[in-house]
């Protein structure tokens, strides 16, 4: 970087906004004590230099006139937004006093730390885990606010939190497949740099790109083939595709035999996998296969698995058994082109062509993310996708080149005192019941950090009328007076990312430092500093010595980051260790069988052992007359990262207000024209906003992008309409997800509703 201006100091830092994996390196121009400019910082590979329109607008957050400037205590009613300035010392005293009172009465468990998405940040998250663990209070996981469906499905079928390395590992090494299936995600707006650029690079070199989405997104506009389907019907499409593949005998037998539980026998009476003990095989817990050469049931061994029968029904010691693959075939056979088309809204010819194309392409990358898993059975949607990839041999079992992935070590944050148990854990959707009904236990105080809870979580009315009133004490760390902040009893001003340091293990294959560029503005402090100062007063000061830098060193103390330290990262970005020439990085499956579990026996009694299609809980699929015939979904907008940047004027100039997208067919039925003011409603609530009539959403579906602040709607807001129904399977396997894309509504011109 050429620096002709001697008054300007250049500092490299990282944008940790919640797009997370994009984590753009930022070169900051500082003049005196003020940042005058941001630009994309360089990377070892020139093509990786990147920034987005939000990152470019970061100074509009740092220097925003509305920033919270000092600690404040609520003086009006909750929600009124009336606060008075207090000192930090006073703030800490209020916290300690309330925590003592509440923990004396209900135990420390009743104090919950509700941590939102820390983005790419690590120690600001780690600091809270540490204080939660030291005080044995409750850490509330935020995966459930939209991001628990995908991990839940992935845990079931692959045994890992994320399916990404198994599906996209080679794609990240820039090995372009013949066919790229972008399914249930819109990286063009939500991950433009780390994923969308690669999609376009691949396409330039000949990859055929298919996008599956209920909306014709910017990503879809770049696809060779767009496939629009009804929200929540992805697993039906997956079964329809599998049926095409099975019917045409295009499945990859060897891959299925070696890497999935496809050959395992299942008892048709119990739905459990057949074990050695069921048929007097000596190894009692072993799984069993049907051995073709000997025409008998045998314990599964690495050597004999290739000789297993993949199909058929067998009677073994009077127990009727079928192979997993046979059960999957039986299920898929119900999903004829006709039926699949009826459920999903995708044309029959297209389903057939796509099924064959996936099966016959040399290699296929399935690029996916959270979007399509935000329906009631979203975990099965992911399992359906992975099943299609599995039967066609497109799940990776190793990466043949590239870099050793960083694996962060959170242990020091979790089990701080060796003999002392760690924190209690609650999913964010379970928190509703914990606060309102004391189930599974009572939560009485909440500390919100990096989360705009009321704005971003489901069922606004329940939160305001039942949830908040049951809390004795609410603390929130924030930059702005967000809709949630107005309900806090104590508001603590935090820094923008340019005012504190953190370790960023992204974007793959890089490691970066989010380096402090400015001293905290006004009286703001970083989350780490706030937690450390509170810990001091709670008698845990020794665990936070060294502040941000101390915690960064702690999380970097990890074999996968050997040779890298804070000082090195200060100088610039570091690449992860590359795999040796000719070497490969194994990607083992974490399931109990060590295989891809096409059949999940632990869900047999739930009727979900196979990746079945179950209709969405609210979204209307059939054309029957219902009171709320439209499905509401909420895509992500490039102008915001969730609710961040919604108050940034430079971006509002390009995108001034919330819009609801509706297909012309649905608009015409309701006498709605472009730019009308409309009300979207269901039996929970209503919201009023401007309409955009567009074929970009499929008939029967309307879209409002998430993240707009409540006060930016004319009436209500997006999450006035959403529900907090828990899926018990998700609760059992992982934690329940919020189903923001599984909501039914009706829409009407604004005037009519006012009559």
């Amino acid at each position, binding site marked *: 970087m*050429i620096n*002709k201006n001697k008054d300007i100091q250049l500092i490299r830092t990282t944008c940790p906004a919640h797009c997370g994996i994009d984590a753009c390196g930022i070169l900051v121009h500082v003049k005196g004590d003020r940042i005058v*400019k941001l*630009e*994309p910082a360089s990377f070892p590979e020139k*093509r990786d*230099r*990147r*920034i*987005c*329109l939000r990152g*470019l*607008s970061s100074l509009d957050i740092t220097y925003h006139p509305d920033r919270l400037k000092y600690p404040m205590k609520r003086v009006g009613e909750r929600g009124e937004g009336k606060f008075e300035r207090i000192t930090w010392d006073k703030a800490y005293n209020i916290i300690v006093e309330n925590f003592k009172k509440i923990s004396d009465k209900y135990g420390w468990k009743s104090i919950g730390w509700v941590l939102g998405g820390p983005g790419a940040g690590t120690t600001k998250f780690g600091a809270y885990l540490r204080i939660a663990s030291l005080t044995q209070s409750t850490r509330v996981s935020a995966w459930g606010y939209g991001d628990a469906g995908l991990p839940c499905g992935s845990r079931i079928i692959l045994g890992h939190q994320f399916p990404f390395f198994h599906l996209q590992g080679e794609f990240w090494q820039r090995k372009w497949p013949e066919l790229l299936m972008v399914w249930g995600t819109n990286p*063009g*707006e939500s991950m*433009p*740099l780390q994923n*969308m*650029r690669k999609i*376009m690079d691949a*396409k*330039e070199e000949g990859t*055929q790109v*298919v996008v599956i989405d209920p909306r*014709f997104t*910017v990503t*879809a*506009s*770049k*696809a*060779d*083939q*767009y*496939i*629009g389907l009804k929200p929540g019907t992805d697993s039906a499409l997956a079964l329809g595709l599998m049926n095409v593949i099975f019917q045409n005998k295009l499945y990859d037998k060897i891959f299925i035999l070696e890497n999935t539980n496809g050959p395992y026998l299942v008892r048709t009476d119990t739905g459990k996998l057949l074990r050695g003990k069921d048929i007097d095989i000596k190894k009692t817990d072993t799984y069993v296969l049907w051995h073709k050469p000997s025409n008998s049931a045998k314990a599964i061994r690495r050597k004999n698995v290739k000789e297993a029968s993949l199909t058929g029904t067998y009677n073994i010691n009077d127990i009727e058994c079928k192979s997993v693959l046979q059960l999957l075939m039986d299920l898929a056979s119900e999903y004829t082109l006709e039926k699949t088309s009826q459920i999903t809204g995708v044309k029959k010819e*297209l389903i057939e*062509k*796509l099924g064959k*194309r996936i099966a016959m392409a040399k290699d296929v990358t399935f690029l996916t993310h959270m979007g399509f898993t935000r329906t009631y059975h979203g975990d099965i949607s992911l399992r359906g996708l992975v099943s299609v990839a599995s039967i066609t041999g497109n799940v990776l079992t190793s990466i043949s080149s590239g870099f050793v992935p960083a694996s962060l070590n959170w242990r020091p944050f979790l089990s701080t005192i060796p003999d002392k148990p760690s924190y209690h854990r609650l999913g964010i959707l379970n928190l509703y019941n914990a606060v309102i009904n004391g189930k599974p236990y009572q939560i009485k105080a909440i500390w919100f950090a990096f989360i705009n809870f009321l704005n971003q979580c489901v069922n606004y009315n329940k939160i305001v009328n039942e949830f908040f009133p049951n809390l004795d004490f609410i603390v929130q760390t924030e930059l702005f007076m967000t809709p949630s902040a107005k309900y806090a009893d104590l508001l603590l001003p935090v820094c923008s990312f340019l005012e504190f340091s953190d370790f960023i293990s992204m974007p793959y294959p890089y490691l970066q430092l989010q380096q402090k560029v400015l001293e905290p503005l006004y009286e703001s402090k970083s989350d780490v500093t706030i937690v450390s100062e509170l810990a001091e007063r709670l008698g845990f000061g020794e665990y936070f010595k060294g502040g941000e830098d101390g915690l960064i060193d702690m999380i970097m103390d990890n074999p996968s980051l050997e040779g890298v330290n804070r000082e090195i990262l200060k100088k610039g970005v570091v690449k992860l260790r590359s795999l040796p020439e000719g070497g490969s990085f194994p990607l083992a499956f974490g399931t109990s069988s060590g295989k891809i579990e096409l059949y999940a026996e632990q869900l047999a009694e739930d009727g979900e052992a196979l990746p079945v299609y179950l209709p969405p809980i609210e979204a209307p699929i059939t054309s029957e007359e219902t009171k709320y015939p439209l499905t509401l979904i909420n895509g992500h907008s*490039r102008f915001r990262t969730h609710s961040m940047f919604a108050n940034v004027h*430079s*971006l509002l*100039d*390009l995108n001034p207000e919330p819009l609801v997208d509706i*297909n012309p067919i649905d608009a015409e039925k309701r006498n709605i024209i*472009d730019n009308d003011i409309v009300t979207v409603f269901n039996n929970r609530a209503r919201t009023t906003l401007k309409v*955009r009539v*567009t*074929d*970009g*959403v*499929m*008939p029967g579906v309307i879209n409002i992008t998430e993240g707009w602040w409540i006060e930016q709607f004319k009436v209500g807001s997006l999450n006035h309409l959403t529900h907090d129904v828990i899926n018990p399977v998700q609760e059992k396997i992982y934690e329940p997800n919020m189903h923001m894309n599984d909501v039914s509504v009706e829409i009407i011109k604004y005037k009519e509703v006012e009559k």
Partner: protein
Amino acid sequence: MNKRLGMVIDQERCIGCEACSIACRIENNTTNFWIKVETRGGTQKDTPKGKFPNLEMDFLPKLCNHCKNPPCVESCPTEALIKREDGPVLLEKDLCTGCRACIDACPYDVIILDEGNNIIEKCNLCAHRIDLELEPFCVICCEGQALYFGDLNDPNDKISKILSERQVFQLKPKEKTEPSIYYCPPRPKKRL
């Protein structure tokens, strides 16, 4: 031969994100947007044309074309607009009276009146950066890596190569202004 600095904008890679618009406004400290990204699709921004699910949508970032024969320069009565030898069409702010003759003369609708100061404003191809051998700020901030900057007169420059390898077009060629901004249209789709 003089340089002819210009750009190639690849519609295949443009994702319509408007980072260029934001980047330009920050770099040049303006209130108006000197780059406007048009949606080539439906009637509203970010919407496609066609009937669901047979849809199409592309994006076209519009900025000053830094024409070889710039009608704005011709039209300016106070010689506030000049065509620099290496390509950029630049405004000498002190000479501009805000008469709008250039706005009428330009066929591309990319010159804007800054009402507060009663002068016009437009893209300057980041001449201040070019002079430091840096690329225009929009180019380095483009999310899709759809913008290429270079010397159109240099056959070895990457943008000359794109011009020779790809199908390209200029806006309103009939106006004979010879824009220095070229566009690559989206590639044909490989349907299933």
